[in-house]
């Protein structure tokens, strides 16, 4: 197992290095630079723009800029955000926890809900419940995330305005609330984006889980369990589910990167200032350091998530051999 983990870690380092290198090159090759975007206004001379480029080393050859970036990143220095005029580390330090909260909650809820729904479907395969849940899940699975986010927003922030449409807290009253009031305010702002993300992910998780359950149901040991007098429901919950959890464990690993990368469209619709929205706006502003840092964090999360999924599967199923 140790050799396996070490090998995967080495692969992860190479993947992260390649991804960030390609990103660094691509963003620099795109037309425009952060200075020309920020200082495109009447009266600004090219000398001023050039002075800013020199201040931030953007006048240096691309190779030199890259080597400097790699050196700084290795020391944990992610550079200076041109759009926020702050260190990238500080900008990400504020955005990342928001994304972890949003996506983390939705991952927990969606896995819990997805597995429950799959079990409910499997208890009476082909029955009314199975068919209706299947249709609903297929619908949720098919709709684009931004569309669902907009519909949820329209319904619960406008038609029946019971939840705030955007933001993470009330910009005025939050600071004047009691502790419980602040907690409630934060939860109210979480409801719509978490619900949207949960619904979207539940559909995928549930479909995978149902397929896995359907595969183990005809097994000899399931027939034996039922023949020994176990009810169908108890057989599913006690035996089939445990043996069919492997796909969900793999899926959980694949969802991990979203914890760091954010959910762009949902963050955009609900104006949730997390990593997804941050990266999207950084691209528009040609904020090179912020783009590259976002990609670095996301690629590390992808590599780590994949590794974690492999290890978790191997640990959960002794039949899986790692090498």
């Amino acid at each position, binding site marked *: 197992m140790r050799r396996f983990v070490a090998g995967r870690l080495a692969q992860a380092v190479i993947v992260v290095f390649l991804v960030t290198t390609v990103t660094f090159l691509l963003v620099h090759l795109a*037309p425009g630079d952060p200075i020309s975007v920020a200082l495109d206004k009447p009266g600004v*001379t090219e*000398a001023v723009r050039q002075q800013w480029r020199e201040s931030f080393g953007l006048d240096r050859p691309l190779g030199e800029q890259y080597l400097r970036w790699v050196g700084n990143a290795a020391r944990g220095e992610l550079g200076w955000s041109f759009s926020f005029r702050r260190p990238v580390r500080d900008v990400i330090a*504020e955005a990342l926890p928001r994304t972890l909260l949003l996506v983390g909650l939705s991952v927990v809820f969606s896995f819990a809900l997805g597995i429950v729904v799959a079990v409910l479907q499997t208890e009476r395969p082909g029955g009314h419940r199975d068919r209706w849940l299947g249709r609903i899940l297929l619908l949720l699975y098919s709709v684009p995330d931004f569309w669902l986010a907009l519909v949820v927003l329209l319904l619960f922030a406008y038609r029946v305005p019971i939840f705030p449409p955007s933001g*993470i807290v009330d*910009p005025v009253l939050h600071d004047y609330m009691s502790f419980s009031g602040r907690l409630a305010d934060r939860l109210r702002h979480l409801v719509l984006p978490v619900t949207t993300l949960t619904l979207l992910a539940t559909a995928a998780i549930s479909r995978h889980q149902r397929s896995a359950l359907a595969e183990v149901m005809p097994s000899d040991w399931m027939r034996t369990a039922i023949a020994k007098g176990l009810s169908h429901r108890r057989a599913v919950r006690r035996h089939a589910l445990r043996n069919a959890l492997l796909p969900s464990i793999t899926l959980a690993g694949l969802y991990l990167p979203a914890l760091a990368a954010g959910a762009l469209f949902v963050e955009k619709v609900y104006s949730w200032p997390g990593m997804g929205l941050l990266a999207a706006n950084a691209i528009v502003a040609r904020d090179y350091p912020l783009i590259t840092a976002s990609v670095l964090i996301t690629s590390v999360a992808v590599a780590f998530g994949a590794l974690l999924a492999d290890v978790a599967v191997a640990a959960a199923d002794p039949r899986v051999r790692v090498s």
Partner: protein
Amino acid sequence: MPCTSHRLSFRATRWIPAAIAGVLLFGCTEVKEQPQSAGPADVGGTMVVATPAEPGSILPGLYSTSIERQVTDLLFDRLAEIGDGLNSIGDKGFRPQLAARWEWAPDSLSIVFHLDPRARWHDGQPVRASDVRYSVNLIKDPSFGSPMASSTMNVDSVSVRDSLTAVAYFKRHTPEQFFDLVYQVSIVPEHILGNTPPAQLKTAEVARRGIGSGRFRLAKWEQGKSLTLVADTLNYRGRPKLDRIVYSLSLDFNSAVARLFSGDADFFEQLRPENMAKLATDTSLRALPYPSLQHTFLALNTIDPAHPGQPNPIFGDRVVRRALTMAVDRQGMLRNVFGAMAHPSYGPFPRYLGVADTTLPQLPYDTLKARALLDSAGWVPGPDGVRIRNGQRLAFGITTTVSSASRKQYSVLLQEAFKRIGAAATVDAVDFAGASTKLQGRSFETALVTFSPDPNVSGVRQAWSSAALGKDGLNYPSYVNPTVDALLDSATLAFDPARARAYSRRAFEIIIEDAPGIWLYEAPTVAGIHKRIHTTGIRADEYWAGMADWWIPASERTPRDRIGLRPAATP
């Protein structure tokens, strides 16, 4: 692009009636309105401003975006404030701010500013003449890299006569020397910033503290959430009517608008036409049209982007430019895209510019004449209907930004208009950075350009004189006409506003005749605002200039208005 004008018409008709209704119901412009004055009981309340952008720098001299400029202006004072008429010649109309009064030297090469002795920084320190000297030196310091540096080139130096008297010396006596100093330089505290080298202020934490002398002071700034300004109750110019202004920060336009319509915000700066129907039906909001200096035109690049220095094979020819202008039904397009809300552009200037003249003769919309002009210039229809001359097809790209729905609509309508006279245009929609790079590098054929010039004659000169040809200038079409140069120079140097207007008028006439651009529209600038908030007159250059005097009657307050100035609860 397969999109037809019919489809665009359909899109437009969905919101035009609502937009017109909105204007009829609420559209009395605030500029003409005589608001009731606020009584002593009407001091207080909170206004939440939804913004689709996040400020980066709030240090005067380094701001680059509208939100940064707005926050900076509310936190920091200038020596004097430009009048509502936006006169930039001499000091007529300017109102005292930090300078209680000023005196011109007999040769007009220096001005003595007497500071208001009551003026204090938000940390309690008095504002001194040395702060004025520091602020001017900072802007002019090349290592500081201020975007405003070029505007203060005529300011030679500032000396300190005593703690409350600063003397500004100018290199030349010009009509706008007062404006150049007073409008472009906000005064910053030397005791806060002076210990940091100017070159490091771009990245210094101290530049984010926002300690100014304005009527609001910075209370809190949380990235991605909000930026709160609270009333400076002991301010020398008087306490603002509002207790606080909270900028509810968002990185997305639609989310920011959603905050207005959900009641989470009270004000949104510039609504789009598609938001007007919703605004008209919202009983708690009203439309607040306000003047602006924004105007949009199609720039026709007279230089060949493929061979810089050589005339453009299509737009280098004045006849072709005039023909293309005549092919465009500007009124029709305006109605199609904006309904009754926008105004046509009358030339290379916005309506609210002091030297603007909306009575200038325009090239007519006449497709027959446009075709005749192209025929006369040797452009003959090719086999596919696109005209050709000496092997050169009358085909070109229209650069526009993907983020602007109205500009994208306009580019499609222009494409159709040009097609009718045998010109093939392709729409090249790119992001802001891409468009900006193309414009600055003059590597476009035609481009939809929107900008707000400085509110003075120099603003026109920045865009249409030979002096603005390089990357320092905004003469994107690379338009050159020595007569126009001379007229704009004369206008810039005229001390008599009437003469400045006359010179400008003649220059505008020539530019319109030469057609280096097709003047399209002045987009409607309509804010959405909660009905409980009463506003004052609004200036075209900065709608927020009078925000400290906006007020909320005591009888109309909501829970967030009743917080008062008490500090936030301890977490």
